[in-house]
């Protein structure tokens, strides 16, 4: 046999193929809550949609007289086939999201509209850095806001199970607070003894690799026996559901992680975005399925859960020349979970008249996304306004936590 035939002979893990573009990571410790006395055991998940979600196509302002003209052929409509599901008399939810619609009616989901981070340019990569780092501007990629929030929480026991997918930790969870991750693997494991010898070498010669390997080994152990059987079919939709299902299962356990982050790629709809059906509709169906997986997987813990779905920025109010949308500014954030004070649209609607658009092209942001996340972190975990303004979202004192987001 040719030597090269043996290279990667058994490396037939489907992880990278199966779960490309979807990932999950979690805090390695249980929080020790001051509020444990009242019987709540809060869970928090953030889902980052990378690529910039078209908020105007997901929760459409069908009551705005300028919407239909701007969004043109892909605009949602209040009636007719595949009509938007009206959340109130003004906003309609994309028909690909029946689960979110159900949660909204059950007052377990809410929409924040015309929201944006503090970033006002239109680079995905800088926009994602701002969204995930929590710093006011780009260029700070050492740690994420969720990791710094974890550092402010009193630390309890180490979690005994965790799951993450993808060989890298998303920025939002990167930082000093230890995180865990795991991906199902079909690759045979290196023997423990080999791993321990390598660890010993790294401890003497390369502390950074020692730390990485230590974590990698722990994760694999914790995840063993965690059978995850994906359903065949529908790539994006299946992958989002699968990651969410695995995350929910682990987070439901008493000794499982309480705080985690997922990232879904693929929302950059420059061309042929589709309206009530099409490319974006498929993706939204996957997101909707992921939220449903959390609800069913978390079981009784759903009532203590808040999920925040956010994206780096929105897309142009007017469709471009290829029935898609280019990079914009204002968009939506979604809240879901039994602990959400839901069933409502939270927005200071700026309107879509040309003069009201940001730079005459984008939905103008009227709500700072940090206010939303601060409000949730305050209500869920009792994080103080000072910590939120200094450590979690540096230099954000003027952005007050939004009140009343959690029941």
């Amino acid at each position, binding site marked *: 046999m040719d*030597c*090269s035939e043996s*290279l*990667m002979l058994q*490396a*037939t*893990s*489907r*992880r*990278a*193929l*199966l779960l*490309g*573009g*979807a990932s999950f990571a979690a805090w390695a410790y249980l929080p020790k809550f001051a509020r444990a006395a009242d019987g709540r055991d809060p869970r928090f998940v953030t889902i980052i949609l990378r690529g910039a979600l078209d908020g105007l196509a997901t929760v459409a302002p069908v009551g705005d007289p300028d919407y239909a003209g701007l969004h043109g052929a892909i605009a949602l409509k209040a009636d007719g086939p595949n009509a938007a599901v009206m959340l109130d008399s003004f906003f309609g939810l994309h028909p690909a999201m029946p689960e979110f619609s159900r949660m909204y009616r059950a007052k377990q989901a809410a929409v924040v509209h015309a929201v944006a981070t503090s970033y006002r340019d239109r*680079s995905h990569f800088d926009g994602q850095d701002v969204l995930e780092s929590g710093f006011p501007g780009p260029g700070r990629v050492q740690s994420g806001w969720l990791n710094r929030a974890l550092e402010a929480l009193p630390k309890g026991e180490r979690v005994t199970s965790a799951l993450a997918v993808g*060989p*890298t*930790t998303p920025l939002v969870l990167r930082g000093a607070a230890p995180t865990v*991750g795991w991906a199902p693997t079909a*690759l*045979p494991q*290196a*023997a423990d*003894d*080999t791993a321990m*010898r*390598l660890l*010993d*070498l790294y401890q*003497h010669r390369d502390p950074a*690799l020692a730390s*990485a*390997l*230590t974590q*990698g080994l722990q*994760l694999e152990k914790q995840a063993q026996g965690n*059978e*995850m*059987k*994906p359903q*065949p*079919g*529908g*790539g994006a939709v299946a*992958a989002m559901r699968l990651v969410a299902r695995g995350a929910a299962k682990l987070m439901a356990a008493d000794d499982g992680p309480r705080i985690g982050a997922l990232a879904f*790629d693929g929302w*950059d709809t*420059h*061309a*042929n975005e*589709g309206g009530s059906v099409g*490319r974006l509709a*498929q*993706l939204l169906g996957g997101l909707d399925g992921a939220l449903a997986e959390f609800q069913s997987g978390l079981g009784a813990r759903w009532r203590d859960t808040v999920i925040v779905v956010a994206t780096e920025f929105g897309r142009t109010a007017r469709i*471009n*020349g*290829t*029935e898609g949308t*280019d990079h914009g500014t204002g968009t939506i954030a979604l809240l879901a979970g039994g602990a959400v004070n839901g069933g409502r649209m939270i927005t200071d609607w700026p309107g879509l008249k040309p003069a009201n658009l940001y730079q005459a092209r984008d939905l103008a942001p009227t709500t700072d996304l940090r206010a939303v996340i601060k409000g949730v972190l305050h209500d869920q975990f009792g994080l103080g306004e000072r910590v939120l303004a200094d450590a979690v979202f540096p230099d954000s004192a003027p952005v007050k936590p939004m009140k009343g987001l959690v029941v």
Partner: protein
Amino acid sequence: MARDSQAALIALNRFGFGARGGASGDLINAASDPRGFVLAELARPNGALLEVPGLLSTPELGKQVFDYQFEIQQARNAAKTAQQGASETPPQAPDATPPQRRNLSLSTAAKEIAGKDPAMQPQPADGANAAVMPSATMQPPTMQTVASPPKPPAQPLNIIQKTFRAEALARLQRGVVADCGFVERLVVFWSNHFCISANKGALARMWAGSFEREAIRPHVLGRFSDMLKAVEQHPAMLFFLDNQQSLGPESRAGINRNRGLNENLAREIMELHTLGVGGGYTQDDVTALARVITGWTFAGRKGQLGAPGSFVFNANAHQPGPQQVLGKTYAQAGLAQGEAVLSDIARHPSTAKFIATKFARHFVADDPPPALVTKLQDTFIKTDGDLRALATALVQSTEAWQAPLTKMRSPYEFLLASGRLLARNPEDPGRYLNGLNVLGQPLWSPAGPNGFPDTAAAWAAPEGIKLRLDISAQLGSQLADRFDPRDLLELIAADAASAETRRTIERAESRQQALALLLMSPEFQRR
């Protein structure tokens, strides 16, 4: 001698793909003249070109895809007609994806909406991922263990899968046989800088290799402005960033079809290819550049605009009139307008800075020495973007030899270095492609137009290190009986190996274990 071995380690690992096994003598040769060893490759005329019998040009490959898709479309239409004839047959559920179309990547699946003209719309290759893993398309994506491996029936590869594998093999073979591998490392750097993703669709997968051969390789030791022009006029890039769909709103086609601009390519030209974020451009500049390059497209199956699959300028789609970009007015008509803008952007000071920083970050350190960046930036400006001069300046600098080896080998570099040390010339790309998928760097398929990450942290994540260990253990268990790992340590590092690494390998309980530990040692992982 220790000092020379350390310099040889830098020559081979920082600049190249690592020492080859057998009697190559790479480490000894590098130790005698480290700089000369690296620079020797730059002196070879046309050393970056990859001309392998059987690899076709972009238009030839385009024609094959168009024909293939046309056949499939015909077959589907025929099937549909037959189905409609049988009135009892229920229509297929709209979301039921035929197995051969299943695509497991989110970003790819996101583009799974077939356009009206299958040849001109982004669309996944049939079984796109099967190009790298044939069994994946026929199996439900279950997590089966290797203990009970799935045994799907063999299915012949389609033309897209065959092409992708042939292109991958040619690239891998070149990397495995190269002396130092510096030129191949430069190819990989520039290919990632100007990346496309094969996951965009059938045409992108078909053209991923030819794009690199035609737009990157001829200019890796040439001029940046020439590479920029070749890239932005290559059908693969125009397809990847949607420019073939972008129409000037006041162009004839724009008016007739009531469609207009798509600024995707224009933005990434400025943000990712040249000036960089903060490089001094505005939204208006992006939009203006988008107008300037309307009409930059490629000919489709019917060849109305030119040879199918070749770059063409479609005057009917071009926004007429002068445009202002970065404060300068471009009054040229047609194709010349965009070429003039690109030529100026290529020489913009922001471009020099952006390229110099990225280049130094790739080869030397995540936070490269400022003096080195300045040196590279000056070279870029002084030589009008001569990339051979840029590479030479890097190798001639003292900084590049003094900075500690803190970077991690990327998965591609790690697998290729393993192959060089352990294997003969690969004859099947499948193992490498699978390994790249597992480690999160699928060949020619980054998640976004910014390419794969280039920091040590990105590749030293817990998950990634554990997977490298598992792969190394596999290699150890399969190949170790052919090697003495202590000899291999002499080949890759000799005196530059740390006492701890040497001891760890010598004290391993088996050759298999020793080889795994060698492949995972800092000497092999860091560069």
